């Protein structure tokens, strides 16, 4: 018996199409990055990567990412907890608002922050008077990065926590568990994989964010230049190898993230199979 859509020719041509498209649009560019980065040999590649400004850009990117992750972790857990464990008017609206950073273009987000916190902005004027500079400095980069990545953790947690319900937490409370003990011993173990997954996605986006950051950073070399901005600067300087060396670093981070994600998913399916 043959199932619908199972004609051999159809299957074969679909597979061929999928493989060709993946190779052309996904794999080939990735290979090109590494090929370009190593076009003049390993020596220039290393020289470019260990360049003072490149190292500064790597440092800034990691710094921003390391600050973004804990902030979004706490924010995401709190938001998911609020939305899934309490009923209040405006709950649905809040769930929709979470998606704002996904819905609007990062450039727009950057411009809005500039408008608000820039020297001539609504809040920025006051900040300027008190000698606080957020825009064109790392705090501004941090703010927009948090903005664009803030849905990731909450989005991962909400469906899971909704499906699990609050019965286990109620049971823990009837047994006398208090606030943080309850979270640490009952809630957290049930959401830890989703949480980690959310963190991985946050990390990937925080490292790679370009649009919003480019608006608020000012791209001052060695100061407010993140790795993605650095790639663009080098490219505009006609330093192709340099640009691709930095791009290769970014691609490497992305590949590591994907590997981590795949491992997690593999572990999750294995856990399900076990129980």
């Amino acid at each position: 018996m043959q199932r619908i859509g199972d004609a051999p020719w159809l299957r074969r041509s679909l597979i061929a199409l999928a493989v060709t498209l993946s190779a052309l649009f996904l794999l080939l560019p990735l290979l090109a990055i590494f090929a370009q980065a190593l076009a003049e040999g390993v020596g220039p590649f290393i020289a470019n990567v260990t360049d003072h400004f490149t190292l500064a850009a790597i440092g800034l990117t990691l710094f921003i990412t390391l600050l973004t992750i804990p902030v979004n972790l706490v924010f995401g857990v709190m938001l998911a907890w609020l939305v899934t464990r309490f009923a209040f008017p405006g709950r649905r609206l809040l769930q929709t608002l979470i998606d704002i950073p996904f819905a609007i273009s990062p450039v727009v987000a950057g411009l809005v922050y500039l408008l608000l916190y820039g020297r001539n902005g609504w809040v920025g004027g006051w900040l300027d008077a008190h000698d606080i500079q957020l825009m064109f400095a790392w705090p501004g980069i941090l703010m927009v990065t948090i903005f664009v990545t803030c849905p990731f953790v909450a989005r991962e947690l909400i469906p899971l926590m909704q499906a699990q319900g609050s019965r286990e937490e109620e049971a823990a409370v009837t047994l006398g568990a208090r606030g943080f003990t309850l979270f640490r011993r009952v809630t957290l173990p049930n959401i830890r994989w989703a949480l980690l997954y959310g963190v991985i996605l946050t990390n990937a986006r925080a490292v790679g964010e370009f649009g919003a950051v480019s608006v608020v950073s000012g791209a001052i070399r060695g100061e407010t230049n993140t790795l993605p901005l650095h790639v663009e600067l080098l490219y505009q300087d006609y330093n192709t190898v340099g640009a691709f060396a930095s791009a290769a670093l970014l691609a490497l981070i992305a590949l590591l993230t994907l590997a981590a994600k795949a491992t997690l998913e593999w572990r999750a399916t294995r856990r399900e199979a076990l129980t």
Partner: protein
Amino acid sequence: MSIRLDHIQKHFGRSQALSPIDLDINSGELIGLLGPSGSGKTTLLRIIAGLETPDDHPDCRILFGERDVTHVHVRDRRIGFVFQHYALFRHMSVFDNVAFGLTVLPRRERPSSGEIRSRVMQLLEMVQLSHLAERFPAQLSGGQQQRVSLARALALKPEVLLLDEPFGALDAKVRQELRRWLRHLHDELGFTSVFVTHDQEEALELSDRVVVMSNGRIEQIDTPETLYRQPRNRFVFEFLGDVNHLEGEVRGGVLTCGEARLTLDLDDGPQEILLRPHEVQVAAAPSADAHLPAVVTAVVPVGAEVRIELNADWMDEPWMATLSHGDAERLALGRGSRVYALPRRWHHYPDSRPDSQQPDVSGDRSAKSGAKRRESGATV
């Protein structure tokens, strides 16, 4: 520990889940809250536990013994709660589940890990699961999970045990076994228990007293015996078992409906009487008082008795009757047999629909407004 509820009411948004309820539960009692879904029984149980807060009212009070727990948080009420779907901690072993309550005690009250170990093993032995201590909840059957959840609830030696449809998700045989076992445990440990169920058989079998609820109100509180013999109103009567209806016009002490006739002492006008299946006898000929011809549509032997289904034009719904095997054989009953139903007893609840506001007094023959019942001398 006794439990006392004064003026407990609850609204969810605009809808009223509980109208003001007063309830006294004696120390050591096993109380069943019985009602259809939406009757407010689970809400009441969760309010006793502290998982739900009753509406604010100056008279609203919840007392455990002498202790006023109205504003005490659930974690400080020291109750055991058993959830309908067990709510076991899925990432913890059976042992850790049972130990949980002990391990989250404040440090100065917490027993040593050795003491916890022996207490947990003792509890697991009590629920006959000590051999599964290292398993995870997902590896256990439903009945086993529910026993773990009971052991977990009893770990802190609560004086009040609350159970929300504890056996609802289990198959009939396991249910029966767990019921007996819970009763035994209750008698042995002497806690006060309240459990919620929609299964009247379970409520009648297990409880010292049953609280019958509907639409957020208590309809009747009585021992299973009294409840079954003297249901206070039609709702209770209908909820506690199968019911046959006979509706017709009464004139001069005779109720008629199509070709059906029954002599009874009710006022003239449209009336309805109710009968339990075991109150219906079946005979080959009508009696002087009752002429209720019917056709047998099904004959089902169930254990010690035979359950038959009767149908006739004058019935809205088929009647059920239970007979002894002997009677069924004597009448040579089969599908299609033509027989006559003879009410042995009947019940009448004037103007009381299931959602009636005023409770009626049952078994009071002298009062005209009260429910009437009648014993008739007819035999096979």
